[in-house]
């Protein structure tokens, strides 16, 4: 039983991810942009964060950088849904550069996500 922060501007994506996590027995925190996500991380100390790259206001990479500036330990999964100029390879390269723990490319499926979380939290 872990507390997982889901940061995604897309309500449906957020809900579907949280539903999968809840059914798997995790508690979820939902944020629709980087700024909200940062507040949750600061205040709620989640065990893991799933962060979308493309978001309005403060995007996923900025959030990632801010988190890593003070917290090297929080496991973070970067989610890319494509976007102008975006590819899985590039997302992976960026994840490497900024010390995200894993990258998922939408649409990813529940099994894949849960397996990854299990590994990261074990």
């Amino acid at each position, binding site marked *: 039983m872990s507390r997982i922060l889901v940061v995604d501007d897309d309500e449906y994506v957020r809900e579907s991810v949280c539903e999968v996590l809840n059914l798997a027995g995790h508690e979820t925190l939902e944020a629709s942009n980087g700024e909200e996500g940062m507040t949750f991380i600061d205040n709620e100390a989640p065990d893991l964060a799933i962060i979308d790259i493309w978001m309005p206001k403060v995007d996923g990479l900025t959030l990632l950088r801010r988190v890593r500036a003070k917290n090297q330990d929080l496991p973070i999964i970067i989610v890319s849904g494509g976007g102008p100029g*975006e590819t899985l390879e590039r997302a992976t390269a960026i994840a490497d550069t900024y010390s995200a723990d894993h990258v998922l490319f939408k649409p990813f499926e529940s099994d894949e996500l849960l397996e990854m979380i299990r590994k990261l939290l074990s």
Partner: protein
Amino acid sequence: MKDGTMADIPEEPPECSAERLKELADTNARLQAKIDEQSLALADLEESRAQLSDLASAASDWVWKLDDQLRFIFISDSFERITGISPSMAMGKTRWEVAGADPDCDEFWRQHRDCLMARKTFRDFRYSFISAEGQQEYSRTSGVPYFNGAGRFLGYRGTAIRETDEILARQKAAQLEQSYREIYENAVVGIFRATPEGAFLQANPAMVKLFGFTDEKEFLEAVNNAAENLIPGPPLRIALKKGIEGSGSIEAFEAELLDKTLKNHIWVSISASEVRDENGTVKYFEGMVRDVTKQNKAETELKESEARNRAIVEALDRAQVGLSITTAARGILYVNSSLLKFVGLTDESQVVGRKLADLQRHGLSDFARIGREMYDSIAKTGSWKGDLEWRRADGTIVYLRARSAPFIDDAMIHVILDTTERKELEQRELKLEEGLKQSQKMEALGQMAGGIAHELNNLLHPVINFTLLIQDQIEDPKLRHYLSRVLECSRKAANIVSDGLTFAHKGAGERKMADLMELTKRAARFTRGILPMDIELKIRTAEGAAIAEVNETEFIQVVMKLAQNANDAMEGVGQILLQMDCVNLDGADAEKLSLEAGEYACLIVSDQGHGIPDDILDHIFEPFFTTKQVGRGTGLGLTVVYGIVKGWNGAIAVESQKGEGATVKVYIPMSHKAEPAPEAKGI
């Protein structure tokens, strides 16, 4: 006989007596003796007269006699014989009347008349008169007065001589002398006379003037005392002497001399010869000096101009500029060796004498049409330029660019360049440009595909995951089947989106070996085109080649993106340095860049912009990271560069300090197959 006076005649005899008779007889005897004597004297006289007459008629002068009124009463026959003039024209007239003069008005004749009136003897009186034929006649005459026994003046007797021929000859000689003098004085050429030792004795005004003098004496002094090669000084004297001694004369001997100022050089041509006296001794040299400075200058200029023309023709040949001369009627008259080389021929006889249209078997272009166009254009506008394609005997094609213009007479001159290389480069450039356009199109497509993919993935993600959730909770096989169909379709849709994204992001194409030095120069040309005018793009490449395996289009894209970024940092004003070097990265340096140690081509792009602050230096290759205002950039530029360079197994390093500009270095592994690169300069 002095003057032909008669012997004294005795007086009448006195009355007779015996004594008287005796006296008479004595007297008679004396008389007889006297008569005898007289007869003898008469005979003598007669003889003397005859002699005189003979003399007078044989002499070259004539005898005349004037009466007491000074009028001619006798003129000897020789007058007519000598002068051809009848004496009657003078008989009964005074001498001045014969000369048509009036002593009352004419001083010359008045003096003569006074002399006669004083009954003085005169000698060698010269005068002239006009003959009946209108001929000017000159005479010289001498005369003495004669008197009777009582001392009465009877007239003048004298002789005269004709001087007409002599005077006319003298006048002619004087005229001749005058005209020679005038020629000497006014001659355009210098005329001189010098001693056998070479000392100048005489120089005409032209010669004096030639050397900048005004006075002959001053000139002669200067010449004869000159130590310098001033004027015809010592060296010239020696040359002249030697030249003349050899053959007696010199002809058009040329020398460069100085004038009076010792500054101006004069070229003169001297012709001179020696003049000998009756013993064969050389008296002096005489000669002419002609100023040939202008002529020599013209000749020198002509020679120089000829040499220059020849040098131009040779230099054009060496510079691989083709040259040909043609006429419409006679075809090709001349081709240089460069042109022969261009068209793959070895001997000018293969083309000389032919017209362009005769060489059609070599032509890809229509030579006859080109020929017509050329002559038309030259006739209308005075020149022509055009291209033609030529097939060499070995089948290779050369592209020639000609510029033609009228030449001497009806000939045309054609300057021809082999533009094959440029043409090929243009074609390559065109291809590259097309490739770039294509890659930009692909990039735009990728952007669009990425955007659509983002939207679709955000929809497909919940569709798939919610379906999975439902499927977990439903046991009706039919409903489960329906849901598996939904999943199947959704996953297919996700694959299509993913494939599309992959396709759109596929690189511009394969990689191959390329010389990055050369490629950098080409990239710079494309880059120049996208930069504002106020940006100075400076290119620096090391010598030699830097061979690496890249995609040319991608490389140019990288250069352009980095330059674009540099330009944005400088806000359109400043200098961008684009540099390509070869570097050897050792272990530590390579490790910092996550590269293996070895040789790398290093592309450096520096700007003079505001620099990149430390805190954002690490993020500049992130997608969507941008310091630019909204609407000025997507922030994707450097990410694309990053992706491309990663693809080449290269690395990027950025150095910058805020306010001091930024330098981006792109390291690209050099191919080991390449020839060893020369040492990098200027890093």
